[in-house]
């Protein structure tokens, strides 16, 4: 029985689709979702610098999920990003970012410890 025009079209589509499946079977690709919309930085002096320089390598949830430690610990964290992880941040921008993080994400009453995780020993877990 000769195929109707519709059947031919369906068969053609199936063949094309199958070829496409075979062609991509060897390849696995993903598209990663956008950054977490819930991880907005608090507004304040230095927010834009922090978003630009920190956000270049990682989403801002890396900042907002952190416990509120001390200003000194935040500064050590910024220095670690530069000296250990190779972030390209000028000294003046680093100061702006440290001050911003201290003002918005630290707890002044938290006891300062001698082993800030900014110390590179055992702290490269990020």
């Amino acid at each position, binding site marked *: 029985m000769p195929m109707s025009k519709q059947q031919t079209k369906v068969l053609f589509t199936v063949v094309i689709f199958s070829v496409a499946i075979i062609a991509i079977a060897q390849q696995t690709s993903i598209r990663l979702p956008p950054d977490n919309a819930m991880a907005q930085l608090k507004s304040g002096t230095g927010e834009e610098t922090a978003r630009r320089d920190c956000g270049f390598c990682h989403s801002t949830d890396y900042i907002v999920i952190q416990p509120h430690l001390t200003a000194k610990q935040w500064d050590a964290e910024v220095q670690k990003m530069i000296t250990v992880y190779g972030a390209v941040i000028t000294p003046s921008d680093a100061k702006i970012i440290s001050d911003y993080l201290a003002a918005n994400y630290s707890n002044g009453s938290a006891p300062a410890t001698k082993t800030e995780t900014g110390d*590179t020993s055992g702290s490269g877990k990020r």
Partner: protein
Amino acid sequence: MGMRFKSGVLDRRQFLHAAATGAVALGATLWGNRLLPGHALAFAEGVEDPLLSGRPLVRYPGKTDLILLTSRPPQLETPIKYFETAITPNEAFYVRYHIPPPTSVDLSTWRLKVTGQLDRPLELSMEDLQSKFPRTTVVAVNQCSGNGRGYFSPRVFGGQWANGAMGNAEWTGVRLRDLLSAAGVKQGAVEVTFNGLDQPVMRTTPDFVKSLTVSRIMQDPNVLIAYQMNGQPLPLLNGFPARLIVPGWYATYWVKNLSEITVLDKPFDGFWMTKAYLIPDNSCACVEPGTAAPHMVPINRMDVRSLIISPGAGERLPSGQTAAIKGITFDGGSGIRQVEVSVDKGATWHSAKLGKDLGNYSFREWSFDWKTPQKGSYTLMSRATNRMGETQRTDPRWNPAGYMRNVIEHVEVTVA
């Protein structure tokens, strides 16, 4: 991600250009103002746990709804309900990258390069891996060094994981020692490094490379290059097309999206072995909070743990009934001797029944039938002991990086 340039790595000039055009800030802002496409925003269960409350559930490629810790590079936590059974489904298995994962792998061009101090260096396709070496399988727990870091007190910086940075799967692949034997390890070789297809954003950021000693590999038939996870190809975000399996050791060694194995004639001095993932070199891997250890060593074997999965925190149970308290237990490979349960804050302990034994490296289910007493609040606890006699800590250890949590966990429930 959007900011990966063609080379995958940016140099300083490209970075400054990108920064100057505002592309970075723009990208972050645009993404930041959008919800994930196609998914209603939902929140993680376990609102009883302040650490998890407010964290969105997200669906990444190849994964089901997981608890979002960080989006870029991705860190996704497994909801605890998936630990009701010993095998963790691939789609629910947690995700943790230090640097951006590959977003595409083409098996027609992918090769596993085995180079360095070898008589016959290899370049293996997936077909080579599957056809030229004996196939072997191990069921093993993969647990992040920082699993439970969010519960550290005093708190420490780092991924604020609850207890879902772990999973247990049946891994199938080839023995690494078979591979190295085929390549002929030269006299004087001491360490082997492992690199994957993940690449840092900045060229100045240390690439994620880990190492094991040659003797560790040659003595352990369970160290595998796995190309299957629970009988399926690995999800890309769990290491497709192949990942290193180091049963009993923390997940930092289980390099994903593996592409290069290099045999060295000297100890590897890379950042991720000598500066990161270090623990205090003492019997408890701990220090007094606020102090530093004089010597640090690379993290290694997992400590013994058990978790109560059901009932969940805050659950209400009827009085005068039999309630099954259930959970999982595991250690670094000696196997579990016993799990005990307390329903009175640790005053008395009762033996739990161990479930099916899937091997020394696997999660093992356990259960205990509790005759629920009179109405009131109760603290449930579980305590595992392994076959070497090691048991869980009564007081939590503390170390600066928040590693190796294994304290006896508490679950508060109400009998009503």
